[in-house]
């Protein structure tokens, strides 16, 4: 029994809005597997950069409304099928954190399906030149499968213990004044990506060397991509030189931030590249410095 990816969707063609993109991805993802909207028990938004720098409500209910996901189960008379929506902000690690959270709802029987969505955009909703990420609508539908050995396992999370965070994004409301709704300041330390590669690969090496994860069993690596080749460099530094194929879509999509892991998985699943029992290493790395990973058995 395990948490499996039942469907996925990713596209750069959503509307210029974080809510709009996530809703667009949610609807398309559900349409792919022919699932009814009332069957989504959890809607988790992992996108960070959002329309107008809104901080209340969470983005997820706005996405739920726009996607038409169970918006008023009382009026519909369907209180036995309701949706709980909330946001998780864990940067590029948000997807794996959402999977971990959703899995605990599956295991207690309090949810059967969880939809994870993302769609980062500059708060001005324009292709702003300072925005270091690409805007990609993405969604992944999670469910609990009875099958033996399928799904996610071996979750691992790590944050560096020093005082350096590598990359930051914030907006000072007093300094930015009347343009705070459409402003965001991004700062990247000079050696950020090199340190990220070292940090993520050290985490993997620890897992391989301690026997908690078998490097030989990995067929694909789905990984954050702040720069082209970041995943390959992490894999090499961690000694993953064998058969594992690193998915790097940087040339097509750039750094899709919180959507990256879903985009790369969708590429694999949509391209008919996967066969039963293939193993995918999901690996996120980002500011903090933070890294997380889990193994997914198809």
């Amino acid at each position: 029994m395990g948490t499996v990816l039942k469907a996925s969707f990713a596209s750069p063609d959503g509307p210029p809005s974080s809510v709009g993109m996530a809703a667009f991805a949610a609807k398309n993802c559900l349409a792919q597997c022919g699932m009814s909207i009332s069957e989504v028990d959890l809607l988790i938004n992992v996108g960070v950069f959002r329309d107008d720098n809104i901080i209340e409500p969470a983005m997820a209910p706005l996405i739920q409304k726009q996607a038409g996901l169970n918006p008023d189960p009382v009026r519909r008379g369907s209180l036995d099928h309701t949706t709980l929506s909330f946001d998780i902000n864990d940067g590029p690690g948000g997807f794996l954190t959402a999977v971990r959270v959703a899995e605990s709802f599956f295991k207690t029987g309090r949810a059967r399906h969880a939809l994870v969505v993302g769609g980062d955009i500059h708060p001005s909703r324009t292709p702003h030149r300072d925005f270091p990420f690409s805007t990609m609508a993405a969604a992944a539908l999670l469910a609990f499968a009875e099958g033996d050995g399928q799904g996610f396992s071996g979750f691992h999370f790590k944050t560096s213990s020093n005082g350096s965070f590598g990359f930051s994004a914030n907006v000072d409301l007093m300094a930015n004044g009347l343009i705070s709704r459409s402003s965001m300041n991004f700062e990247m330390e000079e050696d950020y990506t090199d340190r990220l590669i070292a940090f993520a690969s050290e985490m993997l090496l620890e897992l391989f060397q301690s026997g908690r994860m078998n490097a030989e069993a990995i067929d694909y690596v789905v990984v954050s991509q702040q720069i082209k080749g970041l995943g390959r460099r992490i894999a090499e530094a961690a000694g993953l030189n064998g058969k594992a194929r690193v998915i790097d879509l940087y040339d097509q999509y750039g750094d899709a931030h919180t959507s990256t892991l879903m985009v790369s998985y969708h590429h694999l699943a949509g391209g008919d590249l996967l066969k039963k029992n293939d193993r995918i290493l999901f690996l996120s790395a980002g500011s903090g410095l933070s890294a997380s990973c889990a193994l997914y058995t198809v």
Partner: protein
Amino acid sequence: MVIGSMIKAQFESLGVFFPDRIVSTEELIDRMPVKPLFDLEFLTGVKDRRWRSDAQDSYTIAMAAALDCLKKSRYSPEQIDVLICASISHFKGGLNLWMKPDLSKFLKKSLGLRPDAMSFCMTNACAGMLTAVHILNNMIQTGAVRNGLIVSGECITPIADTAVREIKETIDLQFASLTVGDSGVALMMDRAEDENEGIEFADFVTLAEFADLCLAMPSNENPGLAMYARAVDIHQEAILRLPRILKFVMKKHQITGRDFDYVIPHQTSTRAIEAALALCEKHLQVLPEALISIDRYGNTASTSHFVVLHDHLENKRLKKNSKIFFLALASGMVIGFVAARIGKLEACYGYRS
């Protein structure tokens, strides 16, 4: 403790932080160029609220609450498996809206958690802390973690500052902003050792049809944060739906009001609370005593239920081994219920002598 094959989770310790400065509703109204026609204090029940200093923000307030919690907890920072930051506001370094890395990473490092502990921010408006309780309850029950710390540093008086400056009409979307106060709460949860202790159930629903009735974002009239709430519509839609949801939850979990010693509603305004409780009384058969501290703290957003709980625990007003019915009502619109026996927290605060 195991129910069936499932572990039960409990509240292990509770920490709080309140800024020293107290601002009265009268003082706030005095500052307004356009005064409301109605008596705000009478209508909302908010007399005072805590107000941050320039040096305090969501991060410093959350840190102070977390340190207070750890002083009372049997866990040291390196024993914590997950940290969940659940505040709406995420200011760090003044009115600096911090998006990346998320605030939990700063808290995790400053508190000295293990590098391999999980940490993330989870927001769900004023239902944030109770939603985090729901999440952590599931994670502890399934063994994903052994324990966890939920932290919220709500630095929300900036919306009151903006409302004071921007309210121009006698009916204005920013009136609800005048009721808020700053506070920090940290809650440690772990596995219950006693079958009678801990969380019995948590149940939440998002009525997203009304998601845009309350929005908070930077103001476009003055530097700062603003909240625009259609308070009457929110109240009407919630009150209209609460009975059926409550009835459903009562049947699902086989409860009546007799099963609880106290009910803690979200602290919005006394009138809204009274209306919601009147409905609860009708359906719960018996209404447990309602705990309210809105007069001294105002609406403290995601921390509100635990500010009230702390207030009553500290003043030793609760019966021994109380069972509490937490009632969440938040923008989104979120309606949620958490039922928990809090004997462990009572022991932590000490009993009436």
